[in-house]
């Protein structure tokens, strides 16, 4: 596996999907070594911008070859200044990209039944994962949720791919009212799932991890921590993660993640300095 590259990608297409814009960008270098779960870091604001830091986006589609060869896709939600700038870019403009970054979702050696759970635009990276799993012969189910219908992503693509998809919304404006964790237990049981994959807000990931743990199966989750560099050099993006040796370390979510085993993340301690984290006594 070759590493990340930096390249100037030309925007090929921008499509509105619910509240989001889906970007298709010609970026053969990023596309080449991509695996599901990885992300791309995009410079925002142009050369004279007051915004120094890149914004990260989970990679959705990637076409290393064939039609649209060398393109990548990602989905952008409106938040602060950086995303607003990106949302104003149009086809033909160039984006300064670094990627693919982060570790991919771990794939089972053999086919295993799996439930995939996406929150909001978090569904995006799950769809290429679903493709891989299906190609490997795994049986899968997908649950997608959001606060409201317009914040759902990937429902149609998922239906095309998997045949069916379970939808939840907080306000009941689409699918069943409630959270993704409501239909999750029965999906795990129905499928006899041996693994759960999830991407979405931190609260959701934690809850998904708890459901998986209750079923004694692992959950691999993609976290979204604030990142200054995205490439592992700055140490801003750390999470308290319990290692195989039982020791908790602050791990960088950009290079040691963004995919973590949910049971290893000390969710309750995120944003604190647990006394038993490695090196806390050195502070």
């Amino acid at each position, binding site marked *: 596996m070759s590493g990340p590259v930096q390249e100037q990608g030309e925007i090929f297409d921008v499509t509105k999907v619910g509240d989001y814009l889906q970007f298709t960008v010609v970026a053969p270098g990023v596309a080449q070594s991509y695996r599901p779960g990885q992300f791309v870091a995009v410079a925002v604001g142009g050369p004279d911008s*007051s915004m120094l830091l*890149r914004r990260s986006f989970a990679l959705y589609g990637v076409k290393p070859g064939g039609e649209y060869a060398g393109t990548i896709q990602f989905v952008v939600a409106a938040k602060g200044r950086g995303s607003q700038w990106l949302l104003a870019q149009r086809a033909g403009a160039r984006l300064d990209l670094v990627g693919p970054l982060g570790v991919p979702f771990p794939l089972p050696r053999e086919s295993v039944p799996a439930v995939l759970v996406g929150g909001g635009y978090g569904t995006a990276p799950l769809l290429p994962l679903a493709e891989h799993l299906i190609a490997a012969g795994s049986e899968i189910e997908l649950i997608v949720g959001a606060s409201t219908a317009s914040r759902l992503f990937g429902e149609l693509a998922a239906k095309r791919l998997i045949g069916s998809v379970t939808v939840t919304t907080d306000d009941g404006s689409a699918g069943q009212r409630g959270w993704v964790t409501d239909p999750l237990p029965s999906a795990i049981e129905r499928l006899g799932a041996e693994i759960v994959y999830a991407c979405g807000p931190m609260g959701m990931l934690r809850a998904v991890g708890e459901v998986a743990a209750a079923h004694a199966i692992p959950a691999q989750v993609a976290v979204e921590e*604030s990142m200054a560099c995205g490439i592992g050099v700055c140490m*801003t993006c*750390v999470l308290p993660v319990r290692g195989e040796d039982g020791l908790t370390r602050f791990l960088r979510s950009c290079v040691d993640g963004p995919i973590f085993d949910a049971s290893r993340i000390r969710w309750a301690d995120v944003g604190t300095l647990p006394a038993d984290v490695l090196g806390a006594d050195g502070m």
Partner: protein
Amino acid sequence: MTAATESSTGPGEQAVDMRTSLASFQLPNPVLTASGCAAAGRELGQFFDVAELGGVVTKSIMLKPRSGRPTPRMAETPSGMLNSIGLQGPGIDSFIANDLAWLKQAGARSVVSIAGHNTEEFVNLAKRLYNHPIDLLEVNISCPNVESRGQVFACDPTASARVISAVRRAANPNVPIFAKLSPDVTDIGLIARSVADAGADGISLINTLLGLVIDLDTMRPALGGVTGGLSGPAIRPVAIRCVWQVHQAVPHLPLLGMGGIKTGADALQFILAGASAVSVGTAIFNDPHAPVRILAELQAELAARGFASVTEAVGFAHRAVAEQEEFFASRKLGVGA
């Protein structure tokens, strides 16, 4: 030492000799990374050959493993960022075994930054590094001194001098030591003179400025550490002012300048103000190729102004106008570089 970075000729440009020195440390070119912005070089090695740089300055290392501060650890600010990493690191033993070893096999020049809670820790770090092949020791005294109720060493001329003279005695005499200063002081010239008297072979500056951002969602400080260090282009005018003042205060000491360097033109400002070499920090987060890009840009900027070497440009902005003009007049008469 790569010939390509040492001196090369662009179209219509004179060759510029990019070699420089930081006390006894000879560098093929004047662009290094800044401590804490390049880890120990390995991750940047994915983007370019770190041996092409003047050197890699590693993240400040302490004696023991250190967790660093709770998250959030950063906030973006206008043309800058605030960080409160809190010197997360593996401790000196792991650093020597892994990071330093990697840098050596990569053929990179290593500037090791050390940090301690008290003078003794600094001394022990210098001793641990005594027999290891390092090119320069950067002493990060911009950290809290537990012996002085947490006041930052670099804010007190006496505490700064005590650390520097102790480290100078403990460290391998063949390795130059640079004191890294904080801009958050009333008189940076005073601190510079005191570390110079204490035996520093040179000075690195500047470290970050103390800042604070309020998160308007939580209505509390945005960073887990409450205050943080401000870096990036926003602070560049302060950094250049500090280089200027310290060059005047201790004209005989070489300076490693940094603070908001994003382009070769920015780097040139530091050199003209008195820096013999520069470190690139926050700009790396924006552009992982920043150090090598800046090196190429700097060379072009020097060539465009008729300099035959980097060293000619060091401190050039301090010279009288007449002296500057005379320099270029003689340059035109000469045979070029």
